[in-house]
């Protein structure tokens, strides 16, 4: 069994408390890290090959480097705990089982980017995680890990915990920023990118919960240690949320070099009820689907990209032979039609239209030409929108139909 980093304490009953966190070595190296030069920390994170674990897989250290040099005025760190991607449920475990790990990660990351105020945007439905995390923030303030001059280092950090109101789009980083600013959660035009002009007009770094939880380990144990855990393009482990027709669904922390086959058949106990694997969505609902023959791929960003799909949020949705792919697409299409923020035309209009077409097909009222219409509409709209939501919807639209066309055609009256 490979070493677990983020989930190492999950088995301890009181792992969410400051007491247990400190007993297991938490906050121990913090004083030394706060004495380090911010540029050194950024450099270490760059060399570690840590890639964003929220969905886009962008190199974290590189993103931090986009904050304008010599910027005067506030810089914000925003933690994306919206966890809305269907099939993804890892951040909630981090918030519930290791909230101080996230807080320590925020302290180190905020120090690196020069932020003295950090926000944590928690998915609205995550009531329990929010409670636990908020309590941990209070504990950290009381113990002097947050607030003015943390541990006498001269480094300040305040943390604001903000709850979302139940929209998938508020997980997209600029939609999140709009929502945080008190506006409707509409994604913003880029440029400007948040690192230049983000929340409240200030340079802002948005990172996923899991990404930030890795940071203290990287800084304390070194970039090469972390890089060596993974592949050439991505360092470390990550938490795979495995759901669907497996024997042991759950969260598995594994090196990103693990293969999809091993994740399903070894770690998650194989397909349940002795059925056969049909298809897997490897990175949350927006990732293009893989067939049962396509699972000999490593689960890092590049490995899945080369396989024509994406690592996304590492939400692995497993479908066995009893699953109807057209029905699965209809459900996914309903989700995207429901969650499109409605701001830009191709996404607003075509997500609804494609859902209506898939529904008719499933109900046996599809038209012969309609599979091609869906493909054409999806291809034409791809890459024309404000945010990546629509490209995320296009992933399943196209891949489900291309890879399982027979199943769709069988439902369409001759």
């Amino acid at each position, binding site marked *: 069994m490979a070493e677990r980093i983020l989930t190492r304490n999950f088995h301890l009953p009181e792992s969410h408390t400051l007491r247990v966190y400190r007993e297991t070595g938490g906050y121990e190296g913090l004083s030394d890290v706060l004495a380090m030069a911010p540029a050194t920390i950024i450099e270490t994170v760059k060399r570690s090959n840590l890639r964003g674990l929220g969905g886009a897989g962008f190199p974290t250290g590189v993103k931090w480097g986009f904050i304008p040099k010599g910027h005067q005025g506030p810089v914000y760190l925003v933690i994306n705990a919206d966890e809305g991607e269907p099939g993804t449920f890892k951040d909630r475990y981090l918030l519930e089982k290791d909230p101080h790990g996230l807080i320590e990660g925020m302290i180190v990351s905020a120090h690196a980017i020069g932020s003295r105020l950090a926000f944590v945007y928690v998915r609205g439905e995550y009531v329990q995680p929010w409670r636990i995390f908020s309590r941990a923030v209070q504990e950290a303030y009381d113990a002097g890990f947050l607030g003015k001059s943390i541990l006498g280092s001269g480094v300040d950090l305040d943390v604001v915990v903000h709850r979302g109101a139940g929209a998938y789009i508020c997980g997209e980083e600029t939609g999140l920023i709009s929502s945080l600013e008190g506006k409707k959660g509409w994604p913003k035009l880029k*440029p400007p990118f948040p690192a230049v002009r983000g929340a409240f007009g200030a340079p802002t770094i948005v990172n996923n919960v899991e990404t930030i939880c890795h940071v203290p380990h990287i800084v304390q144990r070194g970039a090469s240690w972390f890089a060596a855990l993974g592949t050439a393009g991505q360092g470390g482990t990550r938490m795979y949320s495995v759901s669907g027709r497996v024997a042991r669904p759950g969260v598995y922390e594994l090196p990103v070099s693990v293969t999809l086959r091993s994740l399903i058949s070894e770690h998650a106990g194989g397909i349940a009820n002795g059925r056969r694997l049909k298809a897997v969505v490897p990175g949350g609902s927006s990732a293009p689907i893989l067939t049962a023959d396509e699972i000999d791929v490593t689960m890092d960003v590049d490995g899945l990209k080369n396989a024509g799909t994406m690592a996304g949020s590492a939400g692995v949705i497993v479908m066995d032979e009893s699953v109807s792919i057209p029905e699965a697409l209809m459900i996914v299409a309903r989700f995207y039609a429901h969650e499109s923020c409605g701001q830009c035309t191709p996404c607003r*209009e*075509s997500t*609804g239209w494609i859902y209506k077409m898939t529904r008719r097909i499933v109900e046996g009222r599809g038209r012969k030409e309609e599979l091609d219409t869906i493909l054409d509409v999806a291809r034409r709209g791809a890459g*024309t929108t*404000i945010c990546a939501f629509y490209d995320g919807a296009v992933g399943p639209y196209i891949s489900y139909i291309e890879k399982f066309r027979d199943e769709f055609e069988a439902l369409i009256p001759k």
Partner: protein
Amino acid sequence: MPKLTIDGREVEVPAGTNLIEAARRLGIEVPYYCYHPGLSIAGQCRLCMVDVGNSPRPQIACNTLAADGMVVRTETPKVLETRQSVMEFHLINHPLDCPVCDQAGECWLQIYYMKHGLYEPRMVDEKVHKPKAVPLGPHVILDAERCILCSRCVRFCDEITGTGELGIFQRGDHSEIGLFPGKELANPYSANVVDICPVGALTDRDFRFAVRVWYLETAKSVCPGCSRGCNIEVHYNLRRPHHNQGHRVARLKPRENPEVNQWWICDAGRYGGKFVDDASRLLFPTRGRENAAREVGWDEMVPLVAARLRDYRPDEIGVLASPRMANEDLFVLKRLVEHLGIANVDFRVPPGRPGDEDRILIKADKNPNTRGAELIGLAPRAGGLDARGMLRAARERRLKGLWVFHHDLLASAWPGSEIREALRALDWFIFQGSNANGISPDADVLLPSATWVEREGTFTNFEGRVQRFWKAVEPPGASLSDWEILARIGDALGLGAVPGRAEDSFKSLAAGVPAFAGLSYRELGDFGKEAATA
């Protein structure tokens, strides 16, 4: 200044120019819905996509700034395909109710479908339904099904008026424009959202169903509603005279002038032109009051007025000019009173209620040409009485004859009893104006004036900008422009030649009034020029 290439042609534009505006300079039209030069960039409609350099995907032109050496292509197959798809997306849930839609004929869905759409429809499912015919306020009504969610109206209320009445509610294809709870779209500029709405979602409650837009003709003009002098277009209908209850002027629309009103006008100005086709218009020269009133021709009327002006001593006569008159009118009047030696001349009458004013466009002075009257010099001449002094002198029988232009003195800040008493004490009272008002029934001579849309001329706004307005429709009945009436009377009194055309009239004004020196009628152009007001 960045120099870039668009469709193979080079253009140099000021830094900060976006690609829509840069292309426009070359006469290349990049289609768009949500972009508006007066509002922030929303980037929502996705229609303005163009190819930029080697970028693998088209970029939105509205949010891309021109950069030195940039190579832009607006007609590549990918761009054309994207435009076509965006048109299809805009229309799949649209009700396609053009035959009953007031926007038809000036709708950007129609225009762009013909230019950039022309696809075979493939959407067969039930469309999304939304509220229809929802009044948003006194002037604007919404059909949410026709709305393409460009958010221009929302941005207008957020950014221009700062009143924030409108929002987009719900998500996805259920998104809809609406009012925030408890709000009404009743700000003083509310109807501008109708102008900027590219489709038939927001229509004008006053104009809708009045005339089909393809029967309308337009004339450039200036709003006479206050001293700002917002540039407008007069939209009038002569081809279907039975439409719109016979009213010729169908609507007033803002006309862009970056120096004066940008793209906007206020609602008071927009709906302030109703007097043109109103039943209260004075149509024929008339002598005598009430039952004795008799319509006469100008050939009878002009000598009558001339005789009155000749037969009384100048100090027995008062002339109350109006800041609603054009510069040309005021100049002839000034020459006439000087010729006759009349010193009791004024143009100022305080309004009964002080006018409202704001920091956007609206000015408290509800007259279009106060500055012109000041510059031309219609104030009391040496030893002469001002307006109120004239009324007092009339009551005291020192003043025997009064010639009032346009003013309704009963709507002034002065006591009505004083005014009535003064008017009744006069030997004669000439009222010249376009419409009957509170005091016109007291006049024993009525001289019917053309309104500003029935003639041409210039107004000088509060900043001293001299702006032209053009003729849209003919003066009704025997009415004439104030300047022509004055010229005829002046002629009868030996004033000498009065120019026969507005342009000549302006030329003599420019020659005769220092502030206007050097201005030429033609060079005023569409946007006007500053008089030397210093």
